[in-house]
């Protein structure tokens, strides 16, 4: 039996964009989408795609990427397909603009997973680089009653079990759980593969499945927001940096050591 894998992925503002381009619309309490800087697939979610494709490299498997949002850059969201994923399902609705509320997003994704049926393994990035909540994947596991292991750096499927190397503060542990399961992965999994030319060609031809809120048939009560955003602001940095200068760089290095001794740090 092929392993049926879903990857949950999110489109985010490029976290590598220049800091000067990072701006907040205080009235709307949201980050302004920077013009001329295309969005990206959340980095940890690309790690999740890579983890799924590594399983597909080793055994018969299919990989479906599912994403929720109000507007997508299709060429960006097709990247997992060009890396080697088989299908793309986009949950797209104006009602999905609320990404602050993890409960809401998890309900949408769980509904899509239920509707698509039959997944053995769901792989997610540990958190999204915009809201850094690290809640949606764990919530989807809870809503669907799946086994759940967080923070993987290597994922394997054997004999009806997911076996994962999971990060702990002083190393890693090998954890196994029965399928169906949901796991989250971290950047320690390694660089995601680059799309091949053949992959890009294949992805161009593929059409995503697009579902609106009505297609998911969710009870309105489940979509009630669990949190309210009151304010969003850029924190004030108050450090006054004392630049240590010298005749040359070596002299500055010496003076730095003396300054640190003078202030009793060393």
């Amino acid at each position, binding site marked *: 039996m092929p392993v049926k894998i879903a990857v949950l992925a999110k489109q985010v503002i490029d976290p590598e964009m220049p800091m000067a381009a990072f701006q907040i619309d205080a009235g709307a309490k949201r980050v302004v989408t920077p013009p001329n800087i295309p969005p990206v697939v959340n980095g940890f979610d690309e790690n999740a795609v890579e983890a799924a494709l590594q399983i597909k490299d080793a055994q018969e498997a299919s990989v479906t990427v599912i994403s929720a949002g109000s507007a997508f850059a299709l060429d960006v969201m097709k990247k997992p397909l060009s890396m080697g994923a088989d299908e793309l399902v986009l949950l797209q609705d104006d009602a999905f603009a609320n990404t602050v509320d993890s409960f809401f997003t998890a309900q949408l994704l769980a509904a899509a997973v239920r509707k698509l049926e039959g997944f053995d393994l769901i792989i997610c990035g540990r958190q999204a680089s915009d809201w850094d909540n690290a809640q949606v994947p764990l919530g989807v596991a809870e809503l669907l009653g799946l086994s759940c292991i967080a923070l993987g750096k290597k994922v394997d499927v054997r004999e009806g079990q997911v076996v994962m190397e999971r990060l702990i503060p002083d190393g890693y542990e090998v954890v196994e759980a029965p399928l169906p399961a949901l796991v989250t992965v971290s950047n320690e999994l390694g660089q995601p593969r680059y799309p091949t030319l053949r992959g890009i060609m294949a992805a161009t031809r593929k059409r995503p499945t697009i579902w609106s809120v009505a297609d998911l048939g969710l009870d309105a009560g489940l979509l009630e927001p669990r949190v309210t955003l009151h304010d969003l602001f850029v924190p004030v940095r108050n450090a006054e940096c004392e630049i240590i200068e010298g005749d040359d760089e070596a002299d500055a*290095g010496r003076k730095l050591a003396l300054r640190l001794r003078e202030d009793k740090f060393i």
Partner: protein
Amino acid sequence: MAEGTGVLIIGEAPGGELSLTTQEVLAAGRQVADGLGQELAVALFGDTLEGPARQAVAHGADKVYAVTHPSLAAFQVELYLSAMETLCREVNPGIILMGRTNEGREVAPRLAFRLGVGLAQDCLEVSVDAASGKLLANRPVYGGNAVAVLSCNYTPQMAAVRPKVYEPLEPDASRAGEVISFPVDLADSLVRSRVIEVVKEEAEGVKLEDASIVVAGGRGLGGPEPFASLEELAKLLGGAVGASRAAVDSGWVPANYQVGLTGKTITPDLYITIAISGASQHMAGCSGSKAIVAINKDAEANIFKEARYGVVGDWEKVLTALTETVRELVQD
């Protein structure tokens, strides 16, 4: 169910000791409970909890729920979650606070979903809104580039507090508090995930989290070799070596060197950064340092906005001279 009241902390007491993070969350919880004029309770999980229960009272708890079962002797995610859910439904608090520890970052969201409520993750500050009496939580978002202020629409209102932000209260052994024994039933069939091997990748010397001086390197080092020079300086100072995510992702140092949002949170007295640009997601792991030193060739790098001392220049020349001078100073 009637709207809950009181503040409940989900605490940790591994190895029969109240964890430092739980002490910190108790300090945060005490402020919140006093602001509301309500009781502060803490739940501890384990097989024997007399010692940590007394410590929790000394650190500010009015009440301790000692949730006991032989299977809770060591952390096991599904068993702990089940015990937490049972307790929370029974106690019905208005607010639940946790520490965003390694365990907390997984357990807090899963518990929130089981209870059907919202959670503010990784909070830098929790307070009570005077007008509404609701819990307000400040949390960094966008890799620390922004801060969001959230409240929860359902009770219990939940927040997970970032470790090393709050200072524990001075323990007072004379404080009185009630300890309530709360045995739970836990079926073996709850267990789904099993740890089959633990691999320690401990660095030699002082642990990064415990070091009072940390020397850290970033992308600008250009390769793994320069970390030997960082090790040398760290050793002279009795400190530890850390790294930015870029250095870890490039494979120059192991993952457990990583300082930042998705790595370790450290609060040394002195944090010496070598060729680190100071992206927000890195600063999220070290902004609690007493003083930061920046050595970077780019005078516009963000790290100079966060540092107390800076040297603009080639890191290799600066570091060599810095290390030699430190060697002379420590030998005196």
